[in-house]
């Protein structure tokens, strides 16, 4: 009897550990806090592949990459999703990924592919843009600004709130937008004028958007222009009850800076086959069409249909501002330091 129990215990332990050389039963996706997927889409992957999908959220994109760099070669999971064009050069230099060219890549917008060796694969893109409060400008009988250059105009004094690029991802993206537009060091003059025109710098998106910006629902903020996302107007419609017929906020299209989010197979994965299947799945139409309403960004696949709320209320900027990942990596620290000297001190 006792021998049977011991054998049973061993059997249970072995099954729990995945057995000797058996097929792995799980694939682990390491990702950031903003990751979301519909339950039925997740289940579709699990049924198709026979693998359990475990999702490990590891902080914001910067924290996720930091953790992956620290555990390079002995990763916490099999696939990492959420590294963006601001961080990808650092991640590639840290050798955290294994190359994998997904067959689904053929359907992806080639402008989003950042690595010719395919160590990272584009999954989605979102744009950081200036948003404005429509009602505020109707009340002021003033046209909302039309471009980044407009915002330094006297008419828009004390109206802009931005996030600190040293502490906030959208804050950094907007700084990069001005650098892409005015060049280096041309951007410095722009920020000096912005400072004279009363720009308010806050720590993070939460404060900027929900407290300082006047256009967010329920906010008592006084500033009608904020650095947020191209997808913020549809969110203002979807998460309001009852839903309004038009978005209360607008996007300044010429101000948008593109953020591409990428996934990669982590070097040292215990389940390379499953990791590849997961990357393929993330590029499938099923997953891609689930992206907008789950994560409020746009799919990388050209043939993925957008949900009606996005068709109606979101702006997909045609010519977003961009900078090469290597250029960002080489200059990021200096730019942020110089920005701090100009705007804060």
């Amino acid at each position, binding site marked *: 009897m006792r021998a049977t129990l011991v054998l049973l215990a061993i059997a249970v332990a072995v099954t729990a550990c995945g057995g000797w050389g058996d097929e792995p039963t799980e694939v682990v996706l390491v990702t950031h*806090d*903003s990751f*979301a997927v*519909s*339950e039925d889409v997740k289940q579709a992957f699990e049924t198709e592949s026979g693998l359990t999908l475990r*999702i*490990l*959220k*590891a*902080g914001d994109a*910067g*924290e996720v*990459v*930091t*953790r992956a*760099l*620290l*555990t390079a070669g*002995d990763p*916490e999971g099999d696939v990492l999703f959420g590294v963006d064009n601001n961080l990808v050069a*650092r991640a590639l230099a840290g050798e955290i990924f294994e190359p994998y060219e997904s067959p689904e890549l053929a359907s992806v917008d080639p402008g989003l592919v950042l690595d010719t060796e395919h160590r990272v694969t584009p999954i989605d893109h979102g744009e950081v843009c200036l948003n404005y409060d429509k009602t505020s400008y109707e009340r002021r009988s003033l046209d909302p600004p039309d471009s980044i250059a407009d915002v330094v105009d006297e008419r828009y004094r004390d109206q802009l709130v931005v996030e*600190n690029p*040293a*502490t906030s991802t959208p804050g950094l993206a907007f700084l990069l937008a001005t650098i892409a537009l005015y060049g280096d060091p041309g951007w410095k003059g722009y920020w000096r004028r912005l400072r004279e025109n009363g720009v308010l*710098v*806050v*720590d*993070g*998106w*939460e*404060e900027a*958007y*929900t*407290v300082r910006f006047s256009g*967010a*629902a*329920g906010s*008592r903020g006084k500033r009608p222009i904020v650095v*947020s*996302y191209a997808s*913020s107007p549809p*969110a*203002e419609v*979807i*998460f*309001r*009850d*009852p839903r309004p017929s038009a978005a209360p906020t607008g996007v300044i299209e010429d101000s948008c800076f593109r953020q591409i989010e990428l996934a990669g197979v982590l070097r040292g994965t215990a389940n390379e086959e499953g990791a590849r299947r997961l990357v393929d799945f993330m590029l499938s139409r099923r997953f891609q069409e689930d992206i907008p*309403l*789950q*994560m*409020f960004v746009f799919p990388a696949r050209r043939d993925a249909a957008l949900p009606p709320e996005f068709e109606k209320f979101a702006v997909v900027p045609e010519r977003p501002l961009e900078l090469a990942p290597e250029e960002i990596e080489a200059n990021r*620290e200096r730019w942020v330091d110089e920005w*701090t000297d100009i*705007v*804060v*001190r």
Partner: protein
Amino acid sequence: VRAWRPLTVGVPLVFLALFFLYPLAAIIERGLRGDGDSALDVLTDPTTRDVVWFTVWQALASTLLTIAVALPAAYVLGRYRFRGRGVVSAVVLVPFVLPTVVVALAFLAVLPEPLERGWAPILIAHAFFNVAVVVRVVGGFWTNLDPRIGEAAATLGASPSRRFREITAPLLSPALAAAAAIVFLFSFTSFAIVLILGGPRYATIEAEIYNQAVRLFDLRAAAVLSLVQLTCVIAAVWVATRLERRVSGGAPLRAERDTLRQPRTAGEKLVVGLSLGALGLFLGLPLAVLVERSLAVGDGYGLAAYEALGRPTSVLLAAPWEAIVNSIVYAAAATVIAVVVGGLAAFAVARTRSRVLDGLVLLPLGASAVMLGLGFLIAFDTEPLDFRAAPWIVPVAQALVAIPFVVRIVAPTLRSIDPRQREAAALLGAPPTRVVREIDLPIVSRGVAVAAGFAFAISLGEFGATVFLARPDRPTLPVAIFRFLGRPGELNVAQAYALAVVLMAVTVVSVLVVERARVRRGGWF
């Protein structure tokens, strides 16, 4: 009792060595080994000097302000019996458990415009968070002080201020020193409050460590800065423990049944009313903002955000209400760990006067949470220490923050028990276990209950380690609040505030329950 020593000293020591010293040492070692700015560059950088100076002075000023704000309420709770006394002492814990980001945003709504940014709102917010530490640690100790000495001095003609200066203050000082040390360490490592309310010009060492480690991935600079931080913290802990020791011992302690009395004269009633009223206003205003914002949906007010808590959402990988269950389960586990490990440590500290352990238990409060989190990652990744994905790692990390409270609340009381009481019992033939059971435990059980309530609340509110370690399909309340706040859209924001209100309610109720479940043996209660 000597035979217990390996247990009372050994268990806490092994726990702290394994879950605190080892991961912290691992990440600092990795940082110093890697490349990045040289240590000398970091140390001589004028920014570092400014950051260190600001961190130290704001922590000192926050500590003084907190004590000033909290002392009247501590006095009232320590001396008077009145209806709702237990509720008051549970409610002061509410600010303590709320996520800092939520509180910072609520402060922006109530502070008058000139006070909105800079060092002043930082100090006010730190006082708001830490009032509970002083009220409960000092008030709890005050409850056990024998009031008869003061009464005797009054009979002999000592004025109230002289009685406070020469009798109450010296007797209270072990608890005051303990509370001050905790408040100092919390303010010292404050992070989100400083960045949001201070504005971009202010940063603490902790904020700079985060910046270096996560934003710039300069692990060497982060490691050097965390050593600087650790040095300051060790110095502060050393001063605090010396202060505590110099002044402690021999306070005449009694159980609360014999010390509390109802306010009788009009003057006493006024003191009780004013102290509690002022505290209520100070704590209530920002909390009222949270309630108001949780109800603000559409053009008016309503319960839509609360109704939505029952429905699954894309923001979490679970329905929001499940976060309540997760929080309570984790917090219960963490409280058990903290009370066992911290209780043993308190006995060791009080009986053996082990200085190393005494200081060591405080260190997790002052060490960098960012570095500790990264340390867990690289220290616990291989057999036999492969804990990265273990579910119990969450309560262990929460207990690390709660243990110092248990020790700091229980040890001063234990230390102040007159040794002659124990000697007399031993002389009369009581075996050591009986001495502990009948002398130490009854006096200390009130402290243990306060400490357990504290530990529970700390674990409920713990964010830094939990967000790092908790599985995404099992979010705790603070984690869920943080996720909702990160999404645009009215309902998401309202749900974040609704969950904050739920967290407030869960805190008050669970602390009341935990504190009721105190030891009833010995006939003192």
